[in-house]
């Protein structure tokens, strides 16, 4: 302890880094600095963004990016942080963020203006949109074929709104089965309870890769929505938000993002689109 303090003082003296005293932090940073714990909310079946590995430990693209932010936060507050994981789902993530249970949400959350009334988002980390996952022999190739079919939709997602709107526009009669999560949506499709599970197209590839018979399923249709993903932080906490922004800018600027991206998306055969690359470039803000 004494040694650590001496080193800190030494470092400060050298002017290489200037850790600020805990009482100078506000909001989440103050909380983290005081407790030494940062709480991450993660999804459990959003492959490859945030899901559980064989040891029930959360892993994924968003988790890796969050670790970069955690490192930056640790550097800012000047101490090692213990990471606490809290599983969230589309229905709980906003409330848990607003009430302070989680400090950072690492999943596959679409950045929407209406959601920004309650939470804040960091830079876009992925761009996707709603598509349909069907059995290859289903004969469904777009939303227009959904008449009389059963569709599973995860409650409270942008996909739910998008599919319902598209179906309404075409005047189709579709049976909707509300499900809680991607895992349950996929289970409903695999057990033939529904013909279609609709969610962000990248997640559909993840679900196929994790299914028992990946060859039975395919992703069809046009994009039904525009879903830019962002890591979620608390609203009105610009100090913490800035640390997050800086951490992501570092990752984008240094090109580290390419390695992280390849690690999670190459197995799915999904290269980064020019749009996503442009987004990375735009958010690689200079120091």
């Amino acid at each position: 302890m004494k040694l650590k303090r001496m080193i800190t003082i030494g470092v400060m003296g050298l002017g290489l880094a200037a850790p600020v005293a805990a009482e100078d932090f506000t909001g989440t940073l103050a909380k983290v600095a005081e407790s030494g714990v940062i709480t991450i909310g993660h999804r459990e079946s959003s492959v490859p963004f945030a899901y559980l590995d064989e040891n029930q430990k959360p892993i994924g693209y968003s988790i890796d990016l969050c670790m970069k932010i955690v490192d930056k936060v640790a550097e800012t507050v000047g101490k090692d942080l213990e990471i606490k994981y809290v599983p969230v789902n589309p229905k709980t993530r906003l409330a848990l963020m607003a009430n302070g249970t989680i400090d950072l949400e690492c999943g596959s959350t679409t950045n929407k203006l209406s959601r920004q009334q309650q939470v804040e988002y960091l830079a876009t980390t992925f761009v996707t949109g709603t598509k349909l996952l069907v059995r290859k022999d289903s004969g469904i190739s777009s939303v227009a074929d959904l008449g009389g079919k059963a569709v599973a939709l995860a409650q409270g997602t942008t996909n739910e709104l998008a599919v319902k709107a598209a179906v309404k526009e075409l005047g189709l009669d579709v049976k909707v089965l509300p499900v809680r999560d991607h895992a349950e949506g996929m289970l409903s499709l695999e057990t033939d309870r529904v013909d279609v599970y609709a969610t962000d197209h990248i997640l559909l590839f993840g679900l196929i890769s994790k299914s028992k018979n990946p060859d039975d399923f395919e992703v069809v249709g046009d994009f039904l929505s525009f879903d830019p993903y962002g890591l979620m932080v608390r609203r009105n906490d610009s100090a913490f938000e800035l640390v997050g922004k800086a951490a992501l800018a570092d990752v984008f600027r240094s090109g580290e993002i390419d390695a992280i991206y390849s690690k999670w998306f190459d197995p799915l055969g999904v290269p980064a689109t020019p749009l996503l690359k442009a987004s990375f470039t735009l958010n690689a803000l200079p120091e």
Partner: protein
Amino acid sequence: MDYNWNWSVLWDETYLGWLISGVQWTFAVALAAWVIALTIGIIVGVGRTLPSKPIAFICTTYVEIFRNVPLLVQMFLWYFVVPELVPQDIGRWMKRDMPNPEYVTAVVALGLYTASRIAEQVRAGIQAVGTGLTSAAYANGFSVSQTYRYVLLPISFRLIVPPMTSEFLTIFKNSSLALTIGLLELTAQSQQIAEYTFQGFEAFTAATVIYICIALTATLIAQLLERHAKIPGFVEKT
């Protein structure tokens, strides 16, 4: 906590409609399941006390299985596993063509689960009547069915009114688990409102208040019923 409160979402036509529809589904599930639970629960509860060993054994097995497996697991079993176990045609019918599969499954699961709990209340009620009256009935030449019809059931049904009240309240609360298999009852609707409007705290408050109102109303009715059903001298109330 940094949160933008907005209670007016609850009076928005769409969301108010969702809440009302949620309340309707909650009642529909709870009441239908209650009918199943009462019917099967009484049969099984009586069965456990019968002198016939095989019947008592079957009924005890029922109670132990349905009471000891968590309701949530039972819901999933009925919804996802049972259709895979039955012949394919029936399974497909259960999954696709059965009207309101979520509703039917929820009612069956909740009904059979609650039946095991009611069976225990009924058994306790019958045993509370005491061996004295039972022996007296047999000594007077009553058959088993006459003993139950004229002595045990009339007394025990009046004895178990208070514990049945709490079972009745529990079935309303347990009906919220139906949301896990996609039934949009009260809790599910409030979660849906939370996700659409991001006003989660308002939506959950509304659901809480509605559940409390249902519970208080049921308790009030139950108290009237209790007063009416009370057997003077059997259960002393001070």
